């Protein structure tokens, strides 16, 4: 009898535990609390906080413009004429948003929650359930930064770039390939990534304005929405429109959406490779040799990737997603106590960004020579990897040839990789 009772207690407590276990990804957007804490730390004295009302105000503006995870919206300010229809369509957002639908006969929906949310999070904050255990962490879209794209830094990726990422995945990271999905579903996910990114960029912009506001609302609805139905005065309307133009017109349309609209025009031209790039060309080994020299001299590549290219040069850098908050307050990335306020609101522990081990020959941004050309020409956004601005296109091609010709080193085999090309190092 006692034993039965005991077992029942255990079972019911187990049930309770499961019930009380809130799923972290319920279909609501998360507030960018890390940015909030960062703004407090940079602008206020210790222990001071911004008024909580701002959180609701920001949430309200965000919801009015972008809707919810189940019912996404996009601000087409110019109605049907709005050029943003070229980059986002509501139908595609709907296909990616919402709860996952299993019924095969109905049109698909909930693609993002099905395929992406457990890593990238419902909000696209890169903090899905599995995120903490992945290296590198899944992308937080809200900074608007992307690593592997055909455009220079600060220009968003094109649809083609994002499609390539979804189709090929990112080898050497947890980001899988979605090659099996039909093209229209890929397109819908691409647009949803853009939607989450613009949404996140705008939220960060609003949070950035807080410090300058000093207690005043971002957009003061009471100017036009009087409690007793009173007509707003001309001054009120003017003031209100002024706020709308600065916060939404400048902050969202000009700073964020327009950039996405312009990005196709910013694509970096890939100069064709010289004939020596061809493996069968007589001058190829000469060309690789030239590339090796550039790697050490004009390229300065060994400074980060190490003399032998195993990625053991500069190791104490962080990427921009981490630097963004650790640089703001006195955070020592090695001491969790200094960033407990950030961890409390979901910031992942800082981890240094490692320069790629070039002897392994997997390239996250694609292994086509054109991909490598773009990485060298433009650098890799959000990481220390710089653009080789001083190199001519032929020189870049020579370095690409050298990188591709590096001896394969399986660093997993016997402890640290052996610098087999040690003798080639020239200083």
């Amino acid at each position, binding site marked *: 009898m006692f034993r039965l009772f005991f077992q029942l207690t255990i079972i019911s407590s187990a049930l309770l535990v499961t019930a009380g276990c809130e799923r972290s990804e319920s279909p609501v957007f998360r507030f960018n609390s890390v940015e909030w804490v960062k703004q407090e730390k940079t602008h206020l004295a210790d222990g001071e906080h911004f008024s909580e009302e701002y959180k609701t105000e920001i949430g309200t503006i965000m919801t009015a413009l972008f809707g919810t995870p189940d019912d996404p919206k996009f601000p087409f300010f110019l109605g049907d004429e709005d050029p943003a229809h070229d980059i986002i369509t509501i139908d595609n957002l709907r296909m990616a948003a919402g709860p996952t639908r299993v019924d095969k006969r109905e049109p698909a929906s909930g693609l993002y929650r099905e395929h992406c949310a457990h890593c990238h999070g419902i909000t696209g904050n890169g903090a899905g359930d599995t995120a903490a255990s992945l290296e590198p962490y899944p992308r937080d879209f809200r900074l608007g930064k992307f690593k592997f794209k055909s455009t220079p*830094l600060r220009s968003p990726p094109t649809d083609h770039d994002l499609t390539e990422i979804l189709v090929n995945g990112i080898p050497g990271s947890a980001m899988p390939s979605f090659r099996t999905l039909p093209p229209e579903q890929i397109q819908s996910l691409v647009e949803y990534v853009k939607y989450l990114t613009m949404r996140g960029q705008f939220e960060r912009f609003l949070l950035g304005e807080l410090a300058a506001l000093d207690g005043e609302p971002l957009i003061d609805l009471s100017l036009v929405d009087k409690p007793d139905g009173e007509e707003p005065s001309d001054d009120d309307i003017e003031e209100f429109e002024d706020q709308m133009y600065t916060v939404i017109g400048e902050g969202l349309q000009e700073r964020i959406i327009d950039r996405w609209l312009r990005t196709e025009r910013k694509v970096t031209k890939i100069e064709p490779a010289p004939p020596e790039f061809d493996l069968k060309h007589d001058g190829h080994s000469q060309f690789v040799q030239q590339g090796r020299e550039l790697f050490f001299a004009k390229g300065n590549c060994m400074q980060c990737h190490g003399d032998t290219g195993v990625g053991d040069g500069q190791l104490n850098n962080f990427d921009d997603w981490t630097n963004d908050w650790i640089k703001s307050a006195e955070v020592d990335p090695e001491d969790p106590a200094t960033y407990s306020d950030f961890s409390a609101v979901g910031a992942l522990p800082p981890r240094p960004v490692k320069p790629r081990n070039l002897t392994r020959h997997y390239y996250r941004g694609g292994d086509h020579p054109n991909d490598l050309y773009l990485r060298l020409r433009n650098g890799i956004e959000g990481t220390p990897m710089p653009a080789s601005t001083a190199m001519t296109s032929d020189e870049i091609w020579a370095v690409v040839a050298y990188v591709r010709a590096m001896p394969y080193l399986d660093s997993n085999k016997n402890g640290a990789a052996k610098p087999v090309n040690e003798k080639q190092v020239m200083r």
Partner: protein
Amino acid sequence: MKRVFCCTLLFVFCVSMSSVALAQDGWGNLTGQIVISGEVPENQPEDVKDNPDKAVCLVDGKIPLDDGVVVNDKNQLRDVYVMMYTGRGADTPDTYHPSYDAQKEVKLTLDNVKCRFVPKASFARPGQTLILKNSDNVGHNCRIATMEHEHNVNIVKNAASEIVLGEESDKIPGEVKCDIHQWMDAIILIRDNPYVSISDKDGKFKIENIPAGDWKFQFWHKKGGYLKTIEVKGYEPDRRGTIETTIKSGETLDLGTLSLPGEALTK
């Protein structure tokens, strides 16, 4: 004939040059000098750690101090941006004085000397060319990240790279960093409105050829952000560190000595 032509050219040139110095009809200047009142925040040694390039980066054999707050022996403060305010709800002129046209054509140099950016604070116009120079015997990368601009350029030892800035304008200065030597930092403002002056080693600033009219000017410093506590005789800076001024045709508005409490630079 040729000589006459040359002389006229020279004459025109001289006239146009002198007009820059003396405020012309329809245009005025703004000047002043910034000094820290109270205690000057102390600069800490740079966090050089055990960087392999330490040897190159030492100044007189020692780890250099951070140059966050630079004053002379009279506590006059360098590197304050005094700039026409272009933010929310601000009036700005439709045209700039023609003397600023040439500014865009000049190539601006940003050097790396002993693991330090020289100059520490700079101002560039959109579309302008930057020469990213490296006078050190080690490699650097130069990471420019402002609100609207981003570049990350590899600069090899004793060499230089050129970049052309994009067309966007910033509201406040952004950062210049090197990932290889993480203590290195500088600031740069990139915007089209040319009415900007960065205080010199004696804390002096001067903005020339401002169209006559009422304009807001803003005070900004890397360490202090918007200098809302700066004291300007006869003016009340607002929470964004701006004051409302009247620039009169042909006159120079001298704001005199502006004093900034040292605490403003500690956050």
